[in-house]
């Protein structure tokens, strides 16, 4: 054992040490320490993977499909995916050199950023957003530039406000629609404005469309289907959400050949190929599960309308989410911060929701509630939340400090 002193900050790389732990992670520890919690904090479907997919995977194990595949992924899967994307989104990608199968959409985001960024180059991250975007930019040696969006604008991008953030080091914008956590999506007009902006500023767009199939009142429009956008879009998606396949870790990236080639270079040295079994499962998902998607979407849709009615009824203003399976609930009229309210709600009523600030500072004043949960759970959670909100409003009227309900130790770390 060496007694050599560690450099200041320990032996972990400085840029990793400096990364803040995920806000979700902190809350997760708090929730798991509380028994009998009703959780609306879950970012994955409450359906199991459709049986036909699981059964096909069992069959593929029996057939001995246990070896590596091509670095790009199974050609059968890439061909099927190419057909699916063209049919459903009018986005045409060549299975030979424009599609890469990845370990979930998360790997695709990581690869895309590492392939694009020189040290210190900037990426615009539109918030509120999925927790991994900004840290992934940092880990790729880049600099995330946060652009907040707001409920009053329907969480859409104000391009006039975005323009001053663009520098000569700006390489890309990361967008996610339908959005986790807000449930907002982009219509054709939004996308056309974004496309024009990206062309003018010569930017690449990482378009995370993982919730595309969970779009409720309109049809999802893929950015890559807009004229001239395929050349500057990295379309990222996967099977986790619409096919209820989170644990299979299977996703993909579609982009022009030069970008895919660069991404494959990193992927082949770090991952080799996405898990073979999951690739076969994904193939089955594309070929056989369109009806399963429809039926799961119908169920999410009913619960979506239910939960939005309920939140508004207990006095928390909630816009109807257009996609994904989250309600982004304004708690501004409670006078509490997101973290205070989430910690208090967990302590007093054993309901877990995620503070909006986990998705960016502009998420302050909001909580994210997932409606990918049974009606029984949703009803129970709403009863408890209704009780909680009534109590804090009552206390506020009496002039009592609304935070006295939970001891200091239960505050968010």
């Amino acid at each position, binding site marked *: 054992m060496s007694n050599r002193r560690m450099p200041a900050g320990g032996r972990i790389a400085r840029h990793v040490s400096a990364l803040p732990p995920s806000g*979700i992670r902190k809350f*997760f520890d708090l929730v798991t320490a509380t028994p009998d*919690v009703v959780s609306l904090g879950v970012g*994955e479907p*409450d359906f199991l993977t459709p049986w036909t997919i699981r059964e096909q995977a069992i069959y593929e194990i029996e057939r001995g499909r246990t070896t590596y595949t091509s670095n790009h992924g199974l050609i059968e899967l890439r061909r099927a995916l190419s057909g699916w994307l063209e049919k459903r989104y009018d986005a045409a990608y060549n299975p030979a050199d424009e599609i890469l199968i990845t370990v979930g959409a998360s790997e695709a985001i990581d690869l895309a950023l590492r392939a694009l960024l020189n040290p210190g180059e900037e990426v615009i991250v539109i918030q509120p957003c999925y927790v*991994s975007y900004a840290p992934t930019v940092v880990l790729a040696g880049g600099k995330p530039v946060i652009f907040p969006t707001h409920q009053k604008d329907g969480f859409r991008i104000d391009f006039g406000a975005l323009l001053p953030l663009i520098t000569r080091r700006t390489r890309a914008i990361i967008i996610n629609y339908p959005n986790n956590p807000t449930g907002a999506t982009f219509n054709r007009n939004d996308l056309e404005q974004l496309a024009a902006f990206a062309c003018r500023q010569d930017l690449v767009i990482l378009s995370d469309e993982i919730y595309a199939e969970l779009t409720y009142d309109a049809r999802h429009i893929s950015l890559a289907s807009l004229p001239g956008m395929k050349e500057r879009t990295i379309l990222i998606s996967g099977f986790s959400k619409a096919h209820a396949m989170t644990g299979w870790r299977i996703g993909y990236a579609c982009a022009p050949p030069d970008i895919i080639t660069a991404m494959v270079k990193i992927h082949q040295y770090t991952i080799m190929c996405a898990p073979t079994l999951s690739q076969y499962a994904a193939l089955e998902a594309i070929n056989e599960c369109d009806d399963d998607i429809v039926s799961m979407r119908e169920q999410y849709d009913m619960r979506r*309308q*239910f939960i939005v009615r309920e939140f508004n009824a207990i006095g928390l203003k909630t816009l109807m989410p257009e996609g994904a399976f989250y309600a982004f609930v304004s708690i501004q009229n409670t006078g509490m911060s997101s973290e205070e309210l989430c910690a208090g709600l967990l302590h007093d009523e054993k309901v877990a929701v995620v503070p909006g600030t986990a998705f960016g500072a502009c998420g302050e004043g909001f909580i994210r509630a997932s409606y990918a949960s049974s009606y029984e759970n949703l*009803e129970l959670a709403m009863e408890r939340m209704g009780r909680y909100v009534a109590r804090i409003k009552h206390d506020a009227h009496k002039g009592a400090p609304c935070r006295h309900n939970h001891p200091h130790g239960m505050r968010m770390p």
Partner: protein
Amino acid sequence: MKHKILHLLRDNARLSAAQIARRIGAPKSEVAAVIKELERSRTIVAYKAIINPELVDEQTVEAVIEVKVRPKRGTGFDDIARRIYNFPEVHSLYLISGGMDFLVFLEAKSMKDIAHFVTEKLATLEDVQSTGTHFALKKYKKDGVVLHEAESASRLAVTP
């Protein structure tokens, strides 16, 4: 609204009109009226519990019987069907395509009772040509519900 109500009741017949009203966002009185009408028109025929027979002390035996019949002129299969389904032992009856005509689902107290029913009641009907009896050994799934271990997703409590 009718469609939504049926959808919910098919999954859980015990939901009250108030619960349904809350889930679909409609007035309770309206939901109750629609349910009443669905019952009156026999769109909703009955509400029953699905019971796992293995966990009940009372012994029952179930059998599926394939029946081939000679259809009657004029009334076809319906008259014969009525003669079969009116027996209380018959809990389901289907007219089917293929080599056989009816599938009769029987529930009785013992194998002897089923044998008695088939040989004395069913096979002796004048239009019945042949029967094939299959005793049920174990029930795995009933009306879309798996009777033993129900699967559920074991999700983490909070994920991004």
